[in-house]
């Protein structure tokens, strides 16, 4: 069993490395697309910062306890999480409905890997978004250092764990939005649904009414994608809230994986010809 797992892992890394170099080759061949992607993401970043900043200006300099720099740091952290998701996870998950409809999932299921890993190892890695990932990261570092939050290894470690969990929650949300394709061809709006819902994670938790805030923290922990790590770092959330949100996030991620495993069993290998 152990030997089989080790062999699967080796297979995954080998195929993933190949997928990475193929993606890089393809993207570099279409250089104009790279430029368009860069410009596209840069304008989106601009609109995020404009929206966030004008909101704080309207509020008179701080919004429900969050200063302008804290809101900007939150916006940048959300950008980091978003760009990381786009770089490494968007293609396998968003291509899923097409794979199901045209029967290409057969080929995924034949690989000696879990279907999710096989999807990742055979899909494009969006290296086009790496520059914007770096820009968001630089902005996040700049604003965090400017605010100078309490230092200490344990704080930074917890912050890193929360940030990673935030990316996992984003991944889990994408599974919940895309995996229903296994059940019905007409559930075609999963991608739109994901983009509409995912944006709610970029707002400070304190702007929501108490009931909505609790839902966002503990029931469908969308705030974990950016607001919880930032809130923890800037002392806008206490340890108890963070721990509960983190636990809820773990359940959300595990739930999404169980949902995927259940959904994939409904795959009938029927080609609709789409």
């Amino acid at each position, binding site marked *: 069993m152990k030997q089989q797992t080790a062999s699967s892992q080796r297979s995954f890394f080998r195929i993933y490395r190949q997928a990475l170099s193929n993606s890089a080759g393809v993207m570099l061949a*279409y250089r*104009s*697309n790279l*430029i*368009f*992607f860069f*410009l*596209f*993401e*840069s*304008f*989106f970043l*601009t*609109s*995020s910062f*404009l*929206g966030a900043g*004008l*909101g*704080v*200006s*309207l*509020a*008179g*300099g*701080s*919004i*429900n306890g969050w200063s302008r720099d804290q809101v900007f740091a939150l916006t940048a952290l959300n950008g980091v999480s978003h760009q990381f998701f786009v770089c490494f996870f968007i293609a396998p998950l968003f291509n899923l409905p097409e794979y199901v409809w045209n029967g290409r999932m057969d080929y995924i299921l034949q690989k000696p890997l879990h279907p999710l890993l096989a999807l990742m190892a055979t899909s494009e890695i969006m290296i086009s978004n790496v520059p914007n990932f770096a820009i968001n990261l630089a902005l996040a570092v700049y604003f965090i250092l400017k605010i100078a939050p309490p230092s200490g290894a344990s704080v930074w470690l917890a912050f890193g764990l929360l940030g990673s969990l935030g990316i996992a929650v984003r991944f889990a949300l994408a599974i919940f939005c895309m995996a229903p394709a296994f059940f019905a061809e*007409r559930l*075609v*709006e999963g991608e*739109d*649904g994901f*983009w*509409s*819902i995912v*944006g*709610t994670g*970029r*707002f*400070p938790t*304190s*702007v*929501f*009414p108490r009931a*909505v805030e609790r839902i966002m923290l503990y029931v469908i922990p969308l705030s974990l994608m950016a607001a919880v790590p930032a809130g923890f770092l800037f002392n806008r959330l206490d340890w108890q809230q963070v721990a509960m949100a983190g636990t809820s996030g773990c359940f959300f991620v595990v739930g999404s994986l169980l949902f995927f495993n259940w959904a994939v069993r409904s795959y009938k290998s029927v080609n609709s010809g789409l």
Partner: protein
Amino acid sequence: MRAVFKAAGLILSQQLSVQLGYRMAFVQVALFEAIGLVGTLFYWRAAATSGSGSGYSAAGIVIYFIVASSHQILQESGISRSLSMDIRTGKLAASLVRPFPFLLQPVCQGIAYSLSRLLMIGPVLVAIFVFVPALRDFFVDVAREQGGVIWLSGYLAALSLGLVCNLVVRLSLGLLAFDMTQTWGPELLFMSIFFALSGVVYPVDLLPVPAVQALSWTPFFYMQGLPNLVALGRVSDGALTAYLARGCLVTVIATFILVFMWRRGVRKFEAIGI
């Protein structure tokens, strides 16, 4: 001429039945959009509640985003993609032999799209404003301050200008396919600039006055910003006349560019699909 009108009527009725036929897909998208809108509404409501500098009340800011999303729903956004696909696949050749100007087809498609969306969201908007007194009272106050008929006619003029502008710009984007194989790069870029500058992410009049003046020389302002601001009664009569005149000028220039691109493209179009 009569044949052209007859063809236009036929295309319009066909498109309407198609759009209304996919009403469940629309409901699904609208539901997702509504979930996404929740975060935005709470963020801006918190901002307006905290400050008072810009004259936006909490109700005013919530209405701004409801109005902005409704306007976005009315604007056909897929027309550029279908037009560029027709050009790329050579399918345009079949449309060119029809006994009426080709551009009549996408124009009717756009009108049908807006009408069908109006039929679908109209009752929802009416219900919102009937059952939420604060929102209804807001509009009653605006109508009282500005004069009901003047305000309503100004709003309808701004909205119509926005819809025409949207159609012209989207068609121009689609026509880029005469010169490039992939138009999704420019489309994505357009979308991100639209988000950054049109007033869909933030109330455009929160920007400094010179920036608003500069934006009023671009189509983006008329596609979202102006209709939103007029609906909220935030544009005085004199300024509205000036904006409408400038908007007409911008639209006419955009239409000239569209016609130029069309004539130039059709001349070199070889109906070779890829």
